[in-house]
């Protein structure tokens, strides 16, 4: 019996588990292969839609499902204390759970995601609201509903972070939201970013900078957040800039999961060293790494994990069958970018081909909503 263990039942872990269960259907049914996924939580949150919760377009209950309902019946799901991985022991090829159990693997997939590092910047937790977590999304919804005018600052504290286009989306949606409420003229909207411009990819930066200008959104960059002064309602940067705010929204610094540090697998931000094409952990060919967890210079996004799952599932299935076939991840990413409350554009790119976002339109917005809805029945279940 070959054991495939998956750490983390987020978007990446769930999709790859289901893809493997389909590819290795016969082997699982003959009990030659076992696929087990671990997560302490029984609920699965579609995190990209937390933005829509924050903007009052979705309710939290609409973006949460039971993980068990999403998994192929051939996948074993372990949650609670024994779903919480305390250590990934790559020397002994095993997972040790918080419940004290030990599971051996022939193949491991690490998809433990990223967490918010609030403590990196003084005052951040008290001062900033973020849709990068569910509770923050709900608080953001209330804050913007009650907002009557003043200065809203959107700050990206550090790069890289999950859902890289999210800051563009939230700022542009907010601009539209404030216009619809008739208070945009009473509001200064300020966007701050750690590197020059509003985004890292030149084509996208150019298009979005133009859009920001046309919407009267002030951009201050590079702005590397140093401190949030909640008493005086100001943020200060390493570059020496100080900005006053009435409402501070944004993205806290990100880092990899604690289990990565506890297992001594990652770098100083807990990102796991990963081959950018094979997605194997460096120096450990029986360990694959997916999604936010990797240290590869690619977007930390759900679509990235989805694209990666094809290579990971293919290569493990081939290896189980004794084939030497190897599929490479080409750096594919696809992200919709909301540009208002009912318009969007998108970017599709890979390592070799940079994106060219089309003009924003309502059609792309509807496609974004459709994709979100279809996530539950198609994407998460690895039907496509």
């Amino acid at each position: 019996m070959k054991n495939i263990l998956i750490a983390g039942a987020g978007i990446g872990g769930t999709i790859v588990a289901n893809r493997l269960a389909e590819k290795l259907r016969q082997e699982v049914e003959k009990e030659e292969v076992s696929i087990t996924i671990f997560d302490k939580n029984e609920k699965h949150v579609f995190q990209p839609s937390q933005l829509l919760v924050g903007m009052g377009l979705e309710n939290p209950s609409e973006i949460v499902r039971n993980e068990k309902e999403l998994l192929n019946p051939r996948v074993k799901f372990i949650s609670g204390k024994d779903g919480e991985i305390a250590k990934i022991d790559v020397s002994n090829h095993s997972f040790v759970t918080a419940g004290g159990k030990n599971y051996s693997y022939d193949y491991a997939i690490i998809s433990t995601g990223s967490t918010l590092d609030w403590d990196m910047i003084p005052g951040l937790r008290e001062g900033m609201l973020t849709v990068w977590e569910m509770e923050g999304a709900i608080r953001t919804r209330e804050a913007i509903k009650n907002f009557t005018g003043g200065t809203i600052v959107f700050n990206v504290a550090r790069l890289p972070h999950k859902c890289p286009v999210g800051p563009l989306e939230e700022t542009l949606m907010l601009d539209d939201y404030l216009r619809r409420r008739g208070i945009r003229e009473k509001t200064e909207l300020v966007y701050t970013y750690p590197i020059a411009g509003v985004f890292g990819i030149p084509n996208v930066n150019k298009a979005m900078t133009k859009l920001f200008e046309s919407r009267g959104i002030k951009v201050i960059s590079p702005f590397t957040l140093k401190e949030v002064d909640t008493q005086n309602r100001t943020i200060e940067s390493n570059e020496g800039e100080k900005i006053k705010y009435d409402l501070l929204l944004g993205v806290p610094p990100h880092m990899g999961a604690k289990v990565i540090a506890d297992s001594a697998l990652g770098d100083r931000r807990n990102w796991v060293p990963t081959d950018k094409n094979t997605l194997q952990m460096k120096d450990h060919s029986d360990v694959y790494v997916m999604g936010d967890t990797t240290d590869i210079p690619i977007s930390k996004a759900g679509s990235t994990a989805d694209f990666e799952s094809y290579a990971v599932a293919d290569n493990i299935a081939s290896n189980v069958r004794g084939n030497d076939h190897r599929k490479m991840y080409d750096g594919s990413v696809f992200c919709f970018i909301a540009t208002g409350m009912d318009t969007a554009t998108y970017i599709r790119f890979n390592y070799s081909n940079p994106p060219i976002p089309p003009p924003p339109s309502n059609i792309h917005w509807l496609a974004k909503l459709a994709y979100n809805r279809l996530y539950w029945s198609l994407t998460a279940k690895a039907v496509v």
Partner: protein
Amino acid sequence: MSLKLYKSMDLTGSSCAGVIGELSGVYEELQPGEYVEILIGADSDRKDLYAWAARVGAKVVKEERQGNAFRLEVAKLS
């Protein structure tokens, strides 16, 4: 001063954070006396990198052509 390699990064492909975004995140993790080795593809990225290095006090201690790409070593000296 003998420098210690912290990490190697292939930044030749497209990435949402861009070369400077990816590099600035790692640079912040460096201890004085450490460097990061990077591979970048475009000359425009190379120019941006030098401008960024001047701004944050990073030092490019080595640069060489590697095929169509540039290989650079970026150090934190203090």
